[in-house]
């Protein structure tokens, strides 16, 4: 079997429609085109033999490291050895509207520039696309100035380059040498509906695109309002979120990948290339708090649009256009990441009842709109629809935040979000923004949920809240109870719950497992919830800061985080990079910043 990289070894590039993973040996091992959930063109990360890849790297033994150009999503891989250095720059063009109006660019394009910085280097390029998750064989044709072209089910794939490549068996490859100052460029485009746009064979054209893309990202980054010690981590997380947003609709996908395992061989391989409503509150809160009002509004607008078809019932996830994800299927021809089968596409969890998503949608709407003078009619109708739904269903068991398959319970986290739904609706009502048909029913329900949580989800014997009414297990999601305002951070029960969680679910006081149900790594966002909890008054500020600092150390060298982390092997696990983790980083950094300011203000 061919070599498969560690998840840690990848950087990501994208254009707010699709994304690609590039390893630190210059291999593009994951690309779904033209949008996040489209079938892949390169999937070597899931099967090095059949998946397809596009590698550009110097031959022989080199040291490699990756970094982003400052405040951008332009990825650079630097190869070095004694007396020689080569830089590979990967990006998808991003231009201002004005520039787009005057520049005829391909609808979907990846540009790779390789440059010898010193000495001399022999460069190898292997372009081996396997569309349709490795199912389609291509016939590449060399059409000279029009590039190497292949018709695929998804459009015309065209590779243009100033390097000499030869074509054989559906792939193109070539070796060439570069001396100090010499460059080679590669432009890959996909034209799905219209005649292609061809790039001119000029170095200056690509350098201009690079400069413009850099300026575009830097202008976007300059809008961030967070100023603090963790600025680089917060900015990188914001850049990841922007990258995972789908510009035409405002949706944010959970991750650009599918089936990177939560634990090798455990079968916990899921397709995350969809938008989870559960992420709504955290997303809106994070974007608003660091100054990205436009993105927060676009996201909430997508939320309202995407849920229209199924209202008042909600699916837990949708595709970028608000449609249901495709049927979950297994791609048996792919070997999986490091042999970890199955590779799944589509997501069956979409059909589950998860009551917390109603609270999430209502809460994110509240986060965005509670300061407005009035709500428009459609939003009022939607809030009333969701309110009625939760009112009639909150006593039912559901699949919970962790999307248990084949098991429903009365999860405390779901009850918490039902309480949140009632509470925010009543707050809207109190502010005169919304008229609830049965205000008393909402007040009664809010009190009833609170009673259930306080009486039935509290375990005297364990001195902790528990995961569900049916089971006395502990769950890290309980740390969110004060985040939604259900309890103060510093109340006795929450402090005791945190102690229990720390005792049972943490490892080295830094890594937090979500519960005892799964054989898997520590769940990244749970550690960030712990930081938020401690910083906001649930514990010591110093402890919060210390956990956060240690947590940031296990991102990869370009600051990207997957869903989980195995503290023993020190490897990232699960889909990568994960929006939920990066949202958690932003919110945890904000909690630290806000509370540091409070501490400073209260100093004599």
């Amino acid at each position, binding site marked *: 079997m061919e070599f498969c990289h560690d998840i840690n070894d990848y950087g990501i590039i994208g254009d707010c429609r699709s994304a690609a993973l590039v390893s630190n040996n210059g291999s593009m091992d994951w690309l779904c085109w033209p949008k996040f959930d489209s079938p892949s063109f390169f999937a070597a990360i899931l099967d090095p033999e059949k998946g397809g890849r596009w590698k550009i790297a110097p031959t022989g033994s080199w040291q490699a490291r990756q970094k982003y150009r400052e405040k951008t999503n332009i990825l650079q891989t630097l190869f070095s050895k004694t007396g020689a250095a080569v830089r590979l720059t990967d990006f998808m063009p991003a231009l201002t509207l004005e520039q*787009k*109006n*005057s*520049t*005829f660019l391909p*609808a979907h394009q990846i540009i790779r520039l390789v440059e010898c910085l010193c000495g001399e280097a022999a460069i190898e390029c292997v372009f081996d696309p396997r569309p349709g998750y490795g199912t389609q064989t291509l016939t590449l044709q060399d*059409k*000279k*100035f*029009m590039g190497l072209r292949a*018709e695929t*089910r*998804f*459009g*015309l794939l065209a590779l243009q380059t100033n390097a000499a490549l030869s074509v054989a068996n559906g792939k193109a490859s070539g070796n060439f040498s570069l001396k100090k100052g010499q460059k080679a460029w590669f432009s890959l485009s996909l*034209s*799905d*509906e*219209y*005649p*292609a*746009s*061809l*790039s*001119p*064979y*000029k170095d200056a*054209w690509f350098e201009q695109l690079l400069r413009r893309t850099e300026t575009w990202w830097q202008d976007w980054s300059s809008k961030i309002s967070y100023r603090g010690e963790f600025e680089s981590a917060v900015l990188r997380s914001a850049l990841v979120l922007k990258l995972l947003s789908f510009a035409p609709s405002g949706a944010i996908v959970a991750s650009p990948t599918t089936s990177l395992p939560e634990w090798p061989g455990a079968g916990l391989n899921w397709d995350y290339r969809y938008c989870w409503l559960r992420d709504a509150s955290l997303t809106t809160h994070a974007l608003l708090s660091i100054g990205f009002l436009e993105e927060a509004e676009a996201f909430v607008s997508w939320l309202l649009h995407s849920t229209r078809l199924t209202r008042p019932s909600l699916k837990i996830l949708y595709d970028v256009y608000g449609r249901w994800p495709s049927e979950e299927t297994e791609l048996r021809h792919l070997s999986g990441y490091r042999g970890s089968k199955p590779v799944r596409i589509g997501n069956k969890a979409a059909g589950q009842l998860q009551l917390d998503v109603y609270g999430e949608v209502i809460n994110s709407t509240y986060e965005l709109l509670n300061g407005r003078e009035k709500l428009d009619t459609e939003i009022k109708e939607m809030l009333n629809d969701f309110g009625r739904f939760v009112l009639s269903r909150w006593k039912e068991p559901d699949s919970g935040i962790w999307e248990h398959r084949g098991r429903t319970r009365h999860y405390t986290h779901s009850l918490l979000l039902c309480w949140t739904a009632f509470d925010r609706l009543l707050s809207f009502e109190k502010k005169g923004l919304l008229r609830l048909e049965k205000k008393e029913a909402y007040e009664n329900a809010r009190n009833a949920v609170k009673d259930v949580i306080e009486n039935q989800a509290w375990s005297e014997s364990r001195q902790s809240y528990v995961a569900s009414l049916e089971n006395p297990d502990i769950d890290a999601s309980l740390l969110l109870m004060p985040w939604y305002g259900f309890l103060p951070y510093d109340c006795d029960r929450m402090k005791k719950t945190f102690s229990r969680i720390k005792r049972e679910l943490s490892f080295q006081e830094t890594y937090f497992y979500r519960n005892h149900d799964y054989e898997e790594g520590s769940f990244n966002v749970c550690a960030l919830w712990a930081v938020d909890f401690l910083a906001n008054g649930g514990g010591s500020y110093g402890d919060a800061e210390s956990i956060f600092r240690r947590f940031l150390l296990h991102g990869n060298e370009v600051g990207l985080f997957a869903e989980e982390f195995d503290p023993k092997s020190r490897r990232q696990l699960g889909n990568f990079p994960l929006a939920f983790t990066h949202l958690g980083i932003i919110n945890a950094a904000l909690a630290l910043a806000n509370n540091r300011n409070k501490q400073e203000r209260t100093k004599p």
Partner: protein
Amino acid sequence: MNYAGWLVWGFAGTIVLTILMSFSQAFHMTRMNIPYILGMIVTPDRDRARLAGIFMHMANGWILSLLYIAAFHQWDGPAWWKGAVIGFTHASFLLVTMPIFPSLHPRMADETYGPTVVRQLEPPGFLALNYGIQTPVSIILSHIVFGIILGTFYKMP
């Protein structure tokens, strides 16, 4: 000449032709998009090109339908099969003259000299095969339908 018939059925035929071509694109039969290519003559911006191209395409449809109607007048009146024959001839002419498009279009690249900063639009090539192997089928069928509409509904004065 029946001016009302020309205006109405020339317009209707162009609409149907445009819809058929759009379906061909949606089903990945071809990337040929006549309004888009026409619009690119006046602007490099995709969205504006599509909008401008629609107007240019509709005007083209009316002008070219005059040729169909002139042929009906010379050919003992209209009939659906005559429209189909003219449509086929029109499409065939269009296809064989495609390779000269780069010399007429200010933003279309030339296969011999390659794309430039200004000329980046993919040229259609022989029988417009660069836009997909099924492009000739799509163009011929849509023009036959255009001719059938004119041949069926246009009435002699």
